[in-house]
Protein backbone atom coordinates (compact mmCIF):
# COMPACT_ATOMS: atom_id res chain seq x y z
CA UNK A 1 0.00 0.00 0.00
CA UNK A 2 2.80 2.37 0.93
CA UNK A 3 4.56 1.48 -2.32
CA UNK A 4 1.49 2.33 -4.29
CA UNK A 5 1.20 5.71 -2.58
CA UNK A 6 4.87 6.42 -3.17
CA UNK A 7 4.65 5.56 -6.80
CA UNK A 8 1.52 7.68 -7.09
CA UNK A 9 3.48 10.62 -5.66
CA UNK A 10 6.32 10.16 -8.09
CA UNK A 11 3.79 9.79 -10.91
CA UNK A 12 2.11 13.09 -10.04
CA UNK A 13 5.50 14.80 -9.80
CA UNK A 14 6.37 13.25 -13.13
CA UNK A 15 3.08 14.44 -14.64
CA UNK A 16 3.75 17.92 -13.29
CA UNK A 17 7.21 17.81 -14.81
CA UNK A 18 5.83 16.64 -18.13
CA UNK A 19 3.31 19.45 -18.05
CA UNK A 20 5.92 22.17 -17.47
CA UNK A 21 8.17 20.45 -19.97
CA UNK A 22 5.47 20.47 -22.63
CA UNK A 23 4.49 24.05 -21.94
CA UNK A 24 8.11 25.21 -22.02
CA UNK A 25 8.90 23.31 -25.21
CA UNK A 26 5.67 24.54 -26.76
CA UNK A 27 6.58 28.15 -26.05
CA UNK A 28 10.08 27.61 -27.38
CA UNK A 29 8.84 25.92 -30.56
CA UNK A 30 6.36 28.72 -31.23
CA UNK A 31 9.03 31.32 -30.53
CA UNK A 32 11.52 29.68 -32.90
CA UNK A 33 8.81 29.31 -35.53
CA UNK A 34 7.80 32.95 -35.15
CA UNK A 35 11.36 34.23 -35.22
CA UNK A 36 12.10 32.11 -38.28
CA UNK A 37 9.13 33.59 -40.11
CA UNK A 38 9.94 37.16 -39.09
CA UNK A 39 13.58 36.80 -40.08
CA UNK A 40 12.57 35.28 -43.41
CA UNK A 41 10.06 38.10 -43.90
CA UNK A 42 12.67 40.74 -43.29
CA UNK A 43 15.18 38.82 -45.41
CA UNK A 44 12.99 39.61 -48.40
CA UNK A 45 13.19 43.27 -47.44
CA UNK A 46 16.92 43.02 -46.75
CA UNK A 47 17.48 41.29 -50.06
CA UNK A 48 15.88 44.17 -51.94
CA UNK A 49 17.77 46.72 -49.90
CA UNK A 50 21.12 44.96 -50.29
CA UNK A 51 20.53 44.49 -54.00
CA UNK A 52 19.72 48.18 -54.31
CA UNK A 53 22.72 49.31 -52.31
CA UNK A 54 25.13 47.10 -54.24
CA UNK A 55 23.76 48.65 -57.43
CA UNK A 56 23.95 52.26 -56.18
CA UNK A 57 20.20 52.47 -55.72
CA UNK A 58 18.07 53.18 -52.65
CA UNK A 59 15.63 50.28 -52.65
CA UNK A 60 12.12 50.14 -51.17
CA UNK A 61 11.47 53.17 -48.98
CA UNK A 62 7.81 54.03 -49.44
CA UNK A 63 6.00 51.70 -47.00
CA UNK A 64 6.81 53.09 -43.58
CA UNK A 65 10.13 54.71 -42.57
CA UNK A 66 12.95 53.28 -44.74
CA UNK A 67 10.32 50.97 -46.26
CA UNK A 68 10.26 48.88 -43.09
CA UNK A 69 6.65 47.80 -43.71
CA UNK A 70 7.45 46.56 -47.21
CA UNK A 71 7.28 42.83 -46.27
CA UNK A 72 3.76 43.36 -44.91
CA UNK A 73 2.73 45.11 -48.10
CA UNK A 74 4.25 42.29 -50.13
CA UNK A 75 2.42 39.74 -48.01
CA UNK A 76 -0.90 41.51 -48.47
CA UNK A 77 -0.26 41.67 -52.19
CA UNK A 78 0.50 37.95 -52.32
CA UNK A 79 -2.68 37.07 -50.44
CA UNK A 80 -4.86 39.32 -52.58
CA UNK A 81 -3.62 37.93 -55.89
CA UNK A 82 -5.85 35.70 -57.91
CA UNK A 83 -5.27 32.03 -57.20
CA UNK A 84 -4.73 30.14 -60.41
CA UNK A 85 -4.58 26.35 -60.58
CA UNK A 86 -3.98 25.15 -64.14
CA UNK A 87 -6.76 22.92 -65.46
CA UNK A 88 -4.32 20.23 -66.60
CA UNK A 89 -2.43 20.11 -63.33
CA UNK A 90 -2.65 17.48 -60.64
CA UNK A 91 -4.55 19.58 -58.13
CA UNK A 92 -3.73 17.72 -54.93
CA UNK A 93 0.00 17.59 -55.68
CA UNK A 94 -0.11 21.16 -56.92
CA UNK A 95 -1.16 22.25 -53.44
CA UNK A 96 1.06 19.80 -51.57
CA UNK A 97 4.20 21.06 -53.36
CA UNK A 98 4.54 24.52 -51.80
CA UNK A 99 3.19 23.27 -48.47
CA UNK A 100 5.90 20.65 -48.33
CA UNK A 101 8.58 23.18 -49.27
CA UNK A 102 7.41 25.43 -46.44
CA UNK A 103 7.08 22.55 -43.96
CA UNK A 104 10.56 21.15 -44.51
CA UNK A 105 12.02 24.64 -44.37
CA UNK A 106 10.45 25.25 -40.96
CA UNK A 107 11.28 21.81 -39.50
CA UNK A 108 15.05 22.26 -39.40
CA UNK A 109 14.93 24.93 -36.70
CA UNK A 110 14.08 22.30 -34.07
CA UNK A 111 17.57 20.96 -33.45
CA UNK A 112 19.58 24.18 -33.62
CA UNK A 113 20.86 25.37 -30.22
CA UNK A 114 19.83 29.03 -30.20
CA UNK A 115 21.69 29.89 -27.00
CA UNK A 116 23.19 28.57 -23.76
CA UNK A 117 20.80 27.26 -21.11
CA UNK A 118 18.79 29.73 -19.07
CA UNK A 119 18.43 29.07 -15.32
CA UNK A 120 15.18 30.27 -13.74
CA UNK A 121 14.45 29.36 -10.08
CA UNK A 122 16.94 26.52 -10.08
CA UNK A 123 15.45 24.95 -13.20
CA UNK A 124 17.60 24.72 -16.31
CA UNK A 125 15.91 25.62 -19.57
CA UNK A 126 18.02 24.88 -22.66
CA UNK A 127 17.37 27.24 -25.60
CA UNK A 128 17.09 24.34 -28.00
CA UNK A 129 13.80 22.68 -28.83
CA UNK A 130 15.25 19.20 -28.80
CA UNK A 131 18.83 18.01 -28.44
CA UNK A 132 18.58 14.89 -30.59
CA UNK A 133 21.75 12.83 -30.34
CA UNK A 134 21.60 12.41 -34.12
CA UNK A 135 20.92 16.10 -34.79
CA UNK A 136 23.08 16.23 -37.89
CA UNK A 137 21.39 13.21 -39.42
CA UNK A 138 18.00 14.78 -38.70
CA UNK A 139 19.12 17.99 -40.41
CA UNK A 140 20.24 16.08 -43.47
CA UNK A 141 17.06 14.08 -43.60
CA UNK A 142 14.89 17.17 -43.52
CA UNK A 143 17.04 19.09 -45.98
CA UNK A 144 16.83 16.14 -48.39
CA UNK A 145 13.06 16.17 -48.06
CA UNK A 146 13.12 19.81 -49.20
CA UNK A 147 13.70 18.71 -52.77
CA UNK A 148 10.32 16.95 -52.78
CA UNK A 149 8.47 20.24 -52.43
CA UNK A 150 10.13 21.54 -55.57
CA UNK A 151 9.92 18.23 -57.44
CA UNK A 152 6.23 17.69 -56.66
CA UNK A 153 5.35 21.29 -57.49
CA UNK A 154 7.21 21.15 -60.81
CA UNK A 155 5.70 17.81 -61.71
CA UNK A 156 2.15 18.70 -60.76
CA UNK A 157 2.19 21.90 -62.84
CA UNK A 158 2.14 19.78 -66.00
CA UNK A 159 4.28 22.32 -67.78
CA UNK A 160 7.57 21.61 -69.49
CA UNK A 161 9.36 24.58 -67.98
CA UNK A 162 8.21 23.66 -64.49
CA UNK A 163 9.27 20.07 -65.00
CA UNK A 164 12.69 21.08 -66.35
CA UNK A 165 13.15 23.41 -63.40
CA UNK A 166 12.16 20.68 -60.98
CA UNK A 167 14.51 18.17 -62.60
CA UNK A 168 17.32 20.66 -62.43
CA UNK A 169 16.56 21.39 -58.81
CA UNK A 170 16.47 17.76 -57.76
CA UNK A 171 19.62 16.72 -59.64
CA UNK A 172 21.45 19.79 -58.36
CA UNK A 173 20.42 19.24 -54.75
CA UNK A 174 21.24 15.53 -54.84
CA UNK A 175 24.63 16.23 -56.40
CA UNK A 176 25.63 18.82 -53.87
CA UNK A 177 24.27 16.87 -50.93
CA UNK A 178 27.03 14.31 -51.49
CA UNK A 179 29.85 16.82 -51.14
CA UNK A 180 28.04 18.50 -48.26
CA UNK A 181 27.64 15.18 -46.45
CA UNK A 182 31.28 14.23 -46.87
CA UNK A 183 32.45 17.63 -45.63
CA UNK A 184 30.22 17.13 -42.59
CA UNK A 185 31.63 13.64 -41.98
CA UNK A 186 35.07 15.23 -41.67
CA UNK A 187 33.63 17.66 -39.13
CA UNK A 188 31.95 14.84 -37.22
CA UNK A 189 35.26 12.98 -37.14
CA UNK A 190 36.86 16.01 -35.49
CA UNK A 191 34.09 16.61 -32.98
CA UNK A 192 33.18 13.00 -32.35
CA UNK A 193 29.47 13.73 -31.92
CA UNK A 194 26.32 14.14 -33.98
CA UNK A 195 24.61 16.31 -31.38
CA UNK A 196 24.53 19.99 -32.32
CA UNK A 197 24.53 21.14 -28.71
CA UNK A 198 27.77 19.25 -28.07
CA UNK A 199 29.35 20.57 -31.26
CA UNK A 200 28.66 24.10 -30.11
CA UNK A 201 29.90 23.42 -26.57
CA UNK A 202 33.17 22.09 -27.98
CA UNK A 203 33.74 25.39 -29.79
CA UNK A 204 34.18 27.43 -26.59
CA UNK A 205 37.87 27.73 -27.50
CA UNK A 206 38.69 27.41 -31.19
CA UNK A 207 35.93 27.60 -33.72
CA UNK A 208 35.63 24.65 -36.08
CA UNK A 209 36.41 26.85 -39.07
CA UNK A 210 40.03 26.91 -37.88
CA UNK A 211 40.13 23.11 -37.70
CA UNK A 212 38.15 22.50 -40.92
CA UNK A 213 38.73 25.46 -43.30
CA UNK A 214 38.39 23.40 -46.47
CA UNK A 215 35.37 21.61 -45.07
CA UNK A 216 33.81 24.98 -44.31
CA UNK A 217 34.40 26.22 -47.85
CA UNK A 218 32.83 23.10 -49.33
CA UNK A 219 29.93 23.30 -46.93
CA UNK A 220 29.37 26.98 -47.75
CA UNK A 221 29.33 26.37 -51.50
CA UNK A 222 27.00 23.41 -51.07
CA UNK A 223 24.74 25.47 -48.83
CA UNK A 224 24.40 28.00 -51.65
CA UNK A 225 23.50 25.17 -54.01
CA UNK A 226 21.08 23.54 -51.56
CA UNK A 227 19.13 26.74 -51.04
CA UNK A 228 18.93 27.28 -54.81
CA UNK A 229 20.51 30.70 -54.46
CA UNK A 230 22.64 32.47 -57.05
CA UNK A 231 25.03 31.50 -58.52
CA UNK A 232 23.26 28.13 -58.30
CA UNK A 233 19.72 29.35 -59.00
CA UNK A 234 19.29 27.32 -62.16
CA UNK A 235 15.94 25.79 -61.12
CA UNK A 236 14.33 29.21 -61.48
CA UNK A 237 16.51 30.45 -64.30
CA UNK A 238 14.30 33.08 -65.93
CA UNK A 239 16.30 33.34 -69.13
CA UNK A 240 15.81 29.69 -69.94
CA UNK A 241 12.84 28.39 -67.98
CA UNK A 242 10.47 31.35 -67.55
CA UNK A 243 10.11 30.83 -63.79
CA UNK A 244 11.36 27.30 -63.34
CA UNK A 245 9.41 25.05 -61.03
CA UNK A 246 7.09 27.87 -59.92
CA UNK A 247 6.12 29.05 -63.41
CA UNK A 248 2.47 28.04 -62.93
CA UNK A 249 2.19 29.20 -59.34
CA UNK A 250 0.44 32.36 -58.27
CA UNK A 251 -0.82 34.06 -55.15
CA UNK A 252 0.33 32.75 -51.77
CA UNK A 253 1.37 29.37 -53.16
CA UNK A 254 4.07 31.21 -55.08
CA UNK A 255 4.67 33.20 -51.90
CA UNK A 256 5.25 29.94 -50.02
CA UNK A 257 7.93 28.87 -52.48
CA UNK A 258 9.69 32.20 -52.33
CA UNK A 259 9.30 32.33 -48.58
CA UNK A 260 10.65 28.79 -48.16
CA UNK A 261 13.78 29.91 -49.97
CA UNK A 262 14.32 32.68 -47.44
CA UNK A 263 13.65 30.37 -44.51
CA UNK A 264 16.16 27.93 -45.96
CA UNK A 265 18.64 30.76 -46.22
CA UNK A 266 18.10 31.65 -42.56
CA UNK A 267 18.40 28.04 -41.44
CA UNK A 268 21.50 27.50 -43.59
CA UNK A 269 23.10 30.55 -42.03
CA UNK A 270 22.22 29.22 -38.59
CA UNK A 271 23.69 25.80 -39.44
CA UNK A 272 26.89 27.31 -40.83
CA UNK A 273 27.25 29.44 -37.68
CA UNK A 274 26.58 26.42 -35.49
CA UNK A 275 28.88 24.00 -37.29
CA UNK A 276 31.83 26.21 -38.07
CA UNK A 277 31.56 29.54 -36.29
CA UNK A 278 30.98 28.55 -32.68
CA UNK A 279 27.19 28.94 -32.62
CA UNK A 280 26.39 31.15 -29.65
CA UNK A 281 30.02 31.28 -28.49
CA UNK A 282 32.16 34.38 -28.76
CA UNK A 283 35.86 34.48 -27.78
CA UNK A 284 36.75 36.19 -24.48
CA UNK A 285 33.15 36.54 -23.32
CA UNK A 286 33.70 33.87 -20.65
CA UNK A 287 36.38 36.05 -19.04
CA UNK A 288 33.89 38.84 -18.32
CA UNK A 289 32.47 36.92 -15.31
CA UNK A 290 28.87 37.60 -16.28
CA UNK A 291 25.76 35.96 -14.85
CA UNK A 292 24.86 32.79 -16.73
CA UNK A 293 21.46 34.20 -17.79
CA UNK A 294 23.09 37.35 -19.17
CA UNK A 295 25.51 35.09 -20.99
CA UNK A 296 22.59 33.15 -22.44
CA UNK A 297 21.01 36.31 -23.81
CA UNK A 298 24.38 37.49 -25.14
CA UNK A 299 24.83 34.07 -26.73
CA UNK A 300 21.55 34.42 -28.62
CA UNK A 301 22.64 37.88 -29.76
CA UNK A 302 25.99 36.55 -30.96
CA UNK A 303 24.37 33.69 -32.84
CA UNK A 304 21.95 36.06 -34.55
CA UNK A 305 24.78 38.45 -35.41
CA UNK A 306 26.55 35.56 -37.14
CA UNK A 307 23.34 34.50 -38.86
CA UNK A 308 22.73 38.03 -40.13
CA UNK A 309 26.27 38.16 -41.45
CA UNK A 310 25.78 34.93 -43.37
CA UNK A 311 22.41 36.03 -44.72
CA UNK A 312 24.16 39.16 -45.94
CA UNK A 313 26.86 36.97 -47.48
CA UNK A 314 24.18 35.00 -49.32
CA UNK A 315 22.76 38.22 -50.76
CA UNK A 316 26.15 39.73 -51.42
CA UNK A 317 27.16 36.71 -53.49
CA UNK A 318 23.83 36.68 -55.29
CA UNK A 319 24.20 40.23 -56.50
CA UNK A 320 27.86 39.81 -57.48
CA UNK A 321 28.27 36.51 -59.28
CA UNK A 322 26.45 35.54 -62.46
CA UNK A 323 24.62 32.24 -62.76
CA UNK A 324 26.45 29.03 -63.71
CA UNK A 325 25.75 27.16 -66.87
CA UNK A 326 24.26 23.76 -66.08
CA UNK A 327 27.27 21.69 -67.18
CA UNK A 328 29.56 23.99 -65.18
CA UNK A 329 27.36 23.43 -62.17
CA UNK A 330 27.57 19.66 -62.51
CA UNK A 331 31.33 19.80 -63.16
CA UNK A 332 31.86 21.84 -60.04
CA UNK A 333 29.76 19.49 -57.98
CA UNK A 334 31.02 16.11 -59.15
CA UNK A 335 34.53 16.79 -60.43
CA UNK A 336 35.74 19.36 -57.93
CA UNK A 337 33.75 19.47 -54.72
CA UNK A 338 33.32 15.73 -54.17
CA UNK A 339 37.00 14.84 -54.78
CA UNK A 340 38.01 17.83 -52.68
CA UNK A 341 35.75 16.80 -49.82
CA UNK A 342 37.04 13.21 -50.03
CA UNK A 343 40.59 14.55 -49.87
CA UNK A 344 39.62 16.68 -46.91
CA UNK A 345 38.16 13.60 -45.25
CA UNK A 346 41.34 11.63 -45.89
CA UNK A 347 43.63 14.37 -44.59
CA UNK A 348 41.46 14.81 -41.50
CA UNK A 349 41.62 11.08 -40.83
CA UNK A 350 45.39 10.94 -41.34
CA UNK A 351 46.00 13.88 -39.03
CA UNK A 352 43.74 12.42 -36.34
CA UNK A 353 45.28 8.97 -36.47
CA UNK A 354 48.86 10.14 -37.04
CA UNK A 355 50.09 8.54 -33.80
CA UNK A 356 48.64 5.15 -34.77
CA UNK A 357 49.97 5.38 -38.33
CA UNK A 358 53.49 6.11 -37.09
CA UNK A 359 53.35 2.97 -34.91
CA UNK A 360 52.66 0.83 -38.00
CA UNK A 361 56.02 1.63 -39.49
Amino acid at each position, binding site marked *: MRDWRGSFMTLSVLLYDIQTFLIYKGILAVAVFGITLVVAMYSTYAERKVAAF*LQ*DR*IGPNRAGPFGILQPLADGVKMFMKEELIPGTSNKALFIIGPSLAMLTACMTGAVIPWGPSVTIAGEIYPLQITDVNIGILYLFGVVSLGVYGIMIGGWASNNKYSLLGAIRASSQMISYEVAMGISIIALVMCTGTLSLAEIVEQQKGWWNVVIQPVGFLIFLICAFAETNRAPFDLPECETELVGGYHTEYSSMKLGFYLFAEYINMFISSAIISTFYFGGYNMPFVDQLNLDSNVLAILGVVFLFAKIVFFIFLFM*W*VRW*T*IPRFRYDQLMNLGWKILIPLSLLNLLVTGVVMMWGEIIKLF
Partner: protein
Amino acid sequence: MTLVEKLYLPAIFSGMLITFKHFFKKKVTIQYPEQTREFSKIYRGQHVLKRDEAGAERCTACGLCAVACPAEAITMIAAEREPGEEHLYREEKYAAKYEINMLRCIYCGDCEEACPKEAIFLTDRKVDSLYTRGELVYGKDILVEPVDKRVDVTKRETSKVAEFKAHKEFAHNKTFDKK
Protein backbone atom coordinates in the same frame (compact mmCIF):
# COMPACT_ATOMS: atom_id res chain seq x y z
CA MET B 1 44.98 29.29 -67.01
CA THR B 2 47.17 29.14 -63.97
CA LEU B 3 46.09 27.18 -60.91
CA VAL B 4 45.10 30.34 -59.05
CA GLU B 5 42.91 31.42 -61.96
CA LYS B 6 41.39 27.95 -62.16
CA LEU B 7 40.31 28.13 -58.53
CA TYR B 8 38.07 31.10 -59.40
CA LEU B 9 37.89 32.03 -55.74
CA PRO B 10 40.31 35.00 -55.96
CA ALA B 11 38.29 36.34 -58.88
CA ILE B 12 35.08 35.90 -56.90
CA PHE B 13 36.55 37.70 -53.89
CA SER B 14 37.76 40.64 -55.97
CA GLY B 15 34.33 40.82 -57.57
CA MET B 16 32.67 40.83 -54.20
CA LEU B 17 35.04 43.56 -53.04
CA ILE B 18 33.94 45.70 -55.98
CA THR B 19 30.25 45.26 -55.19
CA PHE B 20 30.97 45.95 -51.51
CA LYS B 21 32.59 49.25 -52.43
CA HIS B 22 29.42 50.16 -54.28
CA PHE B 23 27.48 49.48 -51.07
CA PHE B 24 28.78 52.75 -49.63
CA LYS B 25 28.75 54.82 -52.79
CA LYS B 26 26.48 57.77 -53.26
CA LYS B 27 23.11 56.61 -54.60
CA VAL B 28 22.19 57.84 -58.04
CA THR B 29 18.44 57.63 -57.49
CA ILE B 30 16.37 60.79 -57.78
CA GLN B 31 13.29 60.44 -55.54
CA TYR B 32 10.95 61.67 -58.23
CA PRO B 33 7.84 63.28 -56.78
CA GLU B 34 9.82 64.92 -53.96
CA GLN B 35 12.98 65.59 -55.94
CA THR B 36 13.12 66.57 -59.57
CA ARG B 37 15.99 66.52 -61.95
CA GLU B 38 17.20 69.98 -62.87
CA PHE B 39 15.84 71.04 -66.24
CA SER B 40 17.75 72.78 -68.96
CA LYS B 41 17.09 76.52 -68.96
CA ILE B 42 15.55 76.26 -72.38
CA TYR B 43 13.65 73.01 -71.75
CA ARG B 44 10.87 72.51 -74.28
CA GLY B 45 7.76 71.29 -72.51
CA GLN B 46 4.04 72.08 -72.62
CA HIS B 47 3.07 74.95 -74.93
CA VAL B 48 1.51 78.21 -73.90
CA LEU B 49 -0.51 80.64 -76.00
CA LYS B 50 0.58 84.07 -74.81
CA ARG B 51 -1.54 87.15 -74.22
CA ASP B 52 -0.21 90.69 -74.73
CA GLU B 53 0.28 93.24 -71.96
CA ALA B 54 -3.40 94.22 -72.07
CA GLY B 55 -4.50 90.62 -71.80
CA ALA B 56 -5.62 90.04 -75.37
CA GLU B 57 -4.68 86.84 -77.16
CA ARG B 58 -1.74 87.35 -79.48
CA CYS B 59 -2.57 84.48 -81.83
CA THR B 60 -4.03 85.57 -85.14
CA ALA B 61 -4.66 82.09 -86.53
CA CYS B 62 -2.31 82.54 -89.47
CA GLY B 63 -1.56 78.81 -89.43
CA LEU B 64 2.21 79.12 -89.78
CA CYS B 65 2.77 77.01 -86.70
CA ALA B 66 0.56 74.25 -88.11
CA VAL B 67 2.51 74.40 -91.37
CA ALA B 68 5.85 74.35 -89.57
CA CYS B 69 4.85 71.46 -87.37
CA PRO B 70 6.69 68.32 -88.56
CA ALA B 71 4.37 66.05 -86.58
CA GLU B 72 1.19 67.77 -87.76
CA ALA B 73 0.04 68.08 -84.20
CA ILE B 74 -1.56 71.51 -84.47
CA THR B 75 -5.10 72.16 -85.74
CA MET B 76 -6.88 75.49 -85.69
CA ILE B 77 -10.07 77.14 -86.88
CA ALA B 78 -9.91 80.89 -87.49
CA ALA B 79 -12.70 83.34 -86.77
CA GLU B 80 -13.22 87.07 -87.28
CA ARG B 81 -13.21 89.37 -84.32
CA GLU B 82 -16.58 91.00 -83.62
CA PRO B 83 -16.78 94.66 -82.52
CA GLY B 84 -16.42 94.87 -78.76
CA GLU B 85 -14.02 91.93 -78.54
CA GLU B 86 -10.89 94.09 -78.87
CA HIS B 87 -9.90 93.39 -75.29
CA LEU B 88 -9.99 89.65 -75.99
CA TYR B 89 -8.16 89.40 -79.29
CA ARG B 90 -5.29 91.57 -80.48
CA GLU B 91 -5.83 91.24 -84.22
CA GLU B 92 -9.00 91.22 -86.35
CA LYS B 93 -8.64 87.49 -86.88
CA TYR B 94 -8.25 85.01 -84.07
CA ALA B 95 -8.20 81.27 -83.39
CA ALA B 96 -11.69 80.12 -82.42
CA LYS B 97 -10.30 76.66 -81.92
CA TYR B 98 -6.65 75.84 -81.32
CA GLU B 99 -5.67 72.28 -80.53
CA ILE B 100 -2.32 70.59 -80.04
CA ASN B 101 -2.21 66.83 -79.87
CA MET B 102 0.31 66.32 -77.12
CA LEU B 103 0.87 62.68 -78.13
CA ARG B 104 1.84 63.72 -81.64
CA CYS B 105 3.95 66.71 -80.65
CA ILE B 106 7.70 66.06 -80.67
CA TYR B 107 8.49 69.27 -78.76
CA CYS B 108 10.88 70.52 -81.46
CA GLY B 109 9.95 74.16 -81.03
CA ASP B 110 9.44 74.83 -84.72
CA CYS B 111 6.00 76.32 -83.98
CA GLU B 112 7.43 79.02 -81.78
CA GLU B 113 10.10 79.72 -84.37
CA ALA B 114 7.46 80.01 -87.08
CA CYS B 115 5.12 82.26 -85.09
CA PRO B 116 5.26 85.88 -86.34
CA LYS B 117 3.20 87.18 -83.41
CA GLU B 118 5.20 85.83 -80.46
CA ALA B 119 2.06 83.97 -79.51
CA ILE B 120 3.18 80.38 -78.96
CA PHE B 121 6.02 79.30 -76.72
CA LEU B 122 7.21 76.07 -75.24
CA THR B 123 7.62 76.21 -71.46
CA ASP B 124 9.43 74.18 -68.82
CA ARG B 125 6.13 72.67 -67.62
CA LYS B 126 5.72 68.91 -68.05
CA VAL B 127 2.72 67.49 -69.86
CA ASP B 128 0.56 65.39 -67.54
CA SER B 129 0.26 61.66 -67.94
CA LEU B 130 -3.39 60.90 -68.61
CA TYR B 131 -5.44 57.80 -69.20
CA THR B 132 -7.07 58.44 -72.60
CA ARG B 133 -5.79 59.80 -75.88
CA GLY B 134 -8.65 62.27 -76.15
CA GLU B 135 -7.63 64.00 -72.95
CA LEU B 136 -4.21 64.66 -74.42
CA VAL B 137 -5.54 66.81 -77.26
CA TYR B 138 -5.11 70.13 -75.50
CA GLY B 139 -7.51 72.91 -76.44
CA LYS B 140 -7.45 76.63 -75.82
CA ASP B 141 -8.75 76.13 -72.28
CA ILE B 142 -5.41 74.61 -71.32
CA LEU B 143 -3.05 76.27 -73.77
CA VAL B 144 -3.96 79.95 -73.37
CA GLU B 145 -2.35 81.50 -70.32
CA PRO B 146 -4.76 82.85 -67.69
CA VAL B 147 -4.82 86.65 -67.47
CA ASP B 148 -4.07 86.67 -63.77
CA LYS B 149 -1.51 83.85 -63.93
CA ARG B 150 0.93 84.66 -66.68
CA VAL B 151 3.43 82.02 -67.78
CA ASP B 152 7.02 83.17 -67.79
CA VAL B 153 8.73 82.44 -71.11
CA THR B 154 11.73 84.75 -70.72
CA LYS B 155 13.98 81.72 -70.40
CA ARG B 156 13.11 80.76 -73.96
CA GLU B 157 13.92 84.28 -75.14
CA THR B 158 17.68 84.19 -74.80
CA SER B 159 19.76 86.79 -76.59
CA LYS B 160 20.42 84.29 -79.32
CA VAL B 161 16.73 83.64 -79.76
CA ALA B 162 15.94 87.35 -79.70
CA GLU B 163 18.54 87.92 -82.38
CA PHE B 164 17.03 85.17 -84.45
CA LYS B 165 13.52 86.43 -83.96
CA ALA B 166 14.53 89.92 -85.01
CA HIS B 167 15.53 88.59 -88.42
CA LYS B 168 12.91 85.92 -88.64
CA GLU B 169 11.90 86.69 -92.18
CA PHE B 170 15.35 85.66 -93.41
CA ALA B 171 15.03 82.31 -91.72
CA HIS B 172 11.73 81.69 -93.40
CA ASN B 173 13.06 82.80 -96.74
CA LYS B 174 15.94 80.41 -96.37
CA THR B 175 13.71 77.44 -95.94
CA PHE B 176 11.54 78.77 -98.74
CA ASP B 177 14.55 79.02 -101.06
CA LYS B 178 15.59 75.44 -100.32
CA LYS B 179 12.23 74.17 -101.42
